[in-house]
């Protein structure tokens, strides 16, 4: 019996010593819920950066990085908070890559990250409200605020000659925030929004919404929703009733599912999604190869978010959030050696030697103001049932 105890104690000690060299990063994304078709690729993107760092053996004296996934659901704040709590208390993570949707991200930030002092970098939360949320310098995002997306949308539509649109948004923080910022920008530019109507996700029937939208009229229907949810229902109903022929899709609507669901029925529709033509994006695509779809929405942002956490740790020489939170902006912005995807080892080495880096990554990362991406967008058009890139802005 005594031997057994000793053996157990020794094993526990050994396990403990292995843990000391392990850095755990929580990946909280909505693996179920409204954007479940986007999240697997996003998580793979983040995990790719972690693997790259582990393989280099340079982080904090050769630590390995272990991702721990948790389901943030995108819409259920209670479930998301529970998932985040679990990561911190049970899995003992050292940073959070996530969450994805604005509502749950805000809740995790205020209820879990602030209370436990945990750095959080979201790849896709875009609500303007998060710019002013209290964060003690713990929260960053590699996606731009929707205040900027509203302006970009306005420019795209104005250049297409669309002066009058109907607007529908999914009834949550993301949809409402984007709809408001777009309406403000569009009206300031001389356009008019005939109606701004909310739709609920996952509901039985959208005839009422389509009736109101069609009656208000407009050259194009702007759908600020989710492609896996009510957004597709609205587009389907609008097409069937002949209410609108072309649409404008913000980021939540753009995904492979859009092509699958509608094909060439929505030819001529436009949209935009955070993205860049910087060489970083192409380098990431090459790095990923065939293992998953690197061009899927928010994959580059996810890679960058994970990379930033790890580079900041290296710069601070510590995996404690309170130490490395102040380094995130330093490694993301000038001055320093420019670092692209696939060059994380180089970045880690420079930081180890006491140098400075400017992490550009896959999305030309440039963090401004309260720690959010300045924002470049990929403008797309639906052509023959395919999402094609028009230009970057």
């Amino acid at each position, binding site marked *: 019996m005594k031997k057994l105890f000793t053996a157990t104690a020794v094993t526990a000690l050994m396990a403990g010593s292995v843990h000391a060299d392990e850095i755990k990063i929580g990946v909280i994304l909505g693996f179920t819920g409204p954007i479940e078709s986007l999240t697997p690729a996003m998580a793979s993107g983040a995990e790719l950066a972690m693997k790259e760092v582990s393989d280099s053996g340079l982080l904090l004296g050769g630590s390995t990085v272990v991702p721990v996934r948790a389901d943030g659901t995108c819409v259920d704040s209670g479930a998301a908070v529970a998932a985040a709590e679990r990561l911190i208390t049970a899995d003992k993570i050292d940073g959070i890559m996530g969450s994805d949707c604005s509502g749950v991200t805000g809740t995790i930030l205020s209820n879990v990250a602030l209370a436990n002092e945990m750095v959080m970098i979201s790849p896709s939360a875009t609500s303007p409200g998060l710019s002013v949320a209290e964060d003690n310098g713990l929260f960053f995002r590699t996606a731009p605020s929707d205040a900027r997306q509203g302006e970009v949308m306005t420019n795209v539509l104005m250049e297409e000659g669309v002066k009058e649109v109907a607007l529908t948004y999914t009834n949550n923080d993301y949809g409402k925030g984007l709809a408001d910022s777009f309406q403000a920008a569009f009206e300031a530019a001389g356009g008019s929004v*005939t*109606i701004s109507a909310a739709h*609920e996700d996952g509901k*039985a*029937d959208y005839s*009422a919404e389509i009736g*109101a939208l069609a*009656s208000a009229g407009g050259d194009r229907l702007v759908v600020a929703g989710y492609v896996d949810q009510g957004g597709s229902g609205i587009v389907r109903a609008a097409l069937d009733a002949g209410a609108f022929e072309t649409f404008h899709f913000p980021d939540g609507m753009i995904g492979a599912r859009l092509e699958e669901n509608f094909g060439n029925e929505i030819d001529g529709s436009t949209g935009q999604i955070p993205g860049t033509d910087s060489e970083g994006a192409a380098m990431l695509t090459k790095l990923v190869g065939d293992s998953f779809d690197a061009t899927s929405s928010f994959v580059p942002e996810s890679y960058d978010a994970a990379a930033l956490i790890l580079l900041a740790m290296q710069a601070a020489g510590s995996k404690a959030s309170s130490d490395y939170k102040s380094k995130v902006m330093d490694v993301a912005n000038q001055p320093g050696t420019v670092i692209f995807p696939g060059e994380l080892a180089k970045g880690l080495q420079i930081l180890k030697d006491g140098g400075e880096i400017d992490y550009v990554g896959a999305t030309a990362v440039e963090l401004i103001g309260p720690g959010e991406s300045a924002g470049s967008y990929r403008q797309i058009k639906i052509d023959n049932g395919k999402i094609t890139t028009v230009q970057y802005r």
Partner: protein
Amino acid sequence: MDLLNALVALSNFVLIPAIAYGSQLALGALGVTLIYGILRFSNFAHGDTMAFGTMVTVLFTWWFQSKGITIGPLPTALLALPFGIMGCIILILATDRIIYRFYRVQKAKPVIFVIVSLGVMFIMNGIVRFVIGPNDQRFLDGERFIISVRNFKALTGLQEGLAIKTTQGLTVITAIIVVGVLFYFLNHTRTGKSMRAYSDNEDLALLSGINPDKVVIITWLIVATLATIAGVLYGLDKSFKPFTYFQLLLPIFAAAIVGGLGNPIGAIAGGFTIAFSEVTITYAWKKVAIYVLPEGLKPDGLVQLLSTDYKFAVSFAILLIVLLFKPTGLFSGKSV
């Protein structure tokens, strides 16, 4: 001409969608109301029963499609429907045998049955997600439209278009046939009459030699059939997603209660009341008003009574009003 345009716009965006949605709700509410009338409990598992029947139909549809079996312009799902109904019947009878019968023998209170059905709901919910996954599934094929907006405009020269989807036509026709057969069965056949007798007074029915087990089984058979048909029609018209079927439970119960729980005619009336109130009260009348009103009176605003945010509030407000003034529903069902 303007009047005609107004009428077409109204039909396209209000009447046709509301009639199709109303028929789907009515079929669902009929199932709920039959269970309430004969087995005497509110079956919360109804939405997921619909999802299960539809899932089996979807799987058979895919199988038929892979074999190249189709039925011309009609959706292949119609061919798969009998198999879906069979699958649903098997599941429902098994559920009754294993779960509900236990409580029936004990003469459990209705509220216990309600909670039991809640448990059944979660299990069915899990089975469906486990087999087909939580995502949207599309299984519609064949001709999409009876008449499309573009054809209608070309045909009539009107400014407004009218679209009637094949699925909308199918929904209404099937609903009429199913309701006709059901009413004939309940009112004119021996089994139907014995079911109504059982519903009116269980003890008296037993004394006059009606076999209760048979009544229960027949009820479940009808409910499974109705649920699968309603689910498939809904799935064809919109799309099949397990979570949405779970959400359908709300309008279906509202319809059954407004019409009067336990009363089949009430279920149909309730279905249409809920569907029309959701669509009409939140409709923006601008388009219609522009055609109908004389020049100087044309509206600038949307002429919308309530924003579409409130469409669920509308159906529940109606539910409350009906229950306040007629607690047994529009067509006096059983009091709850």
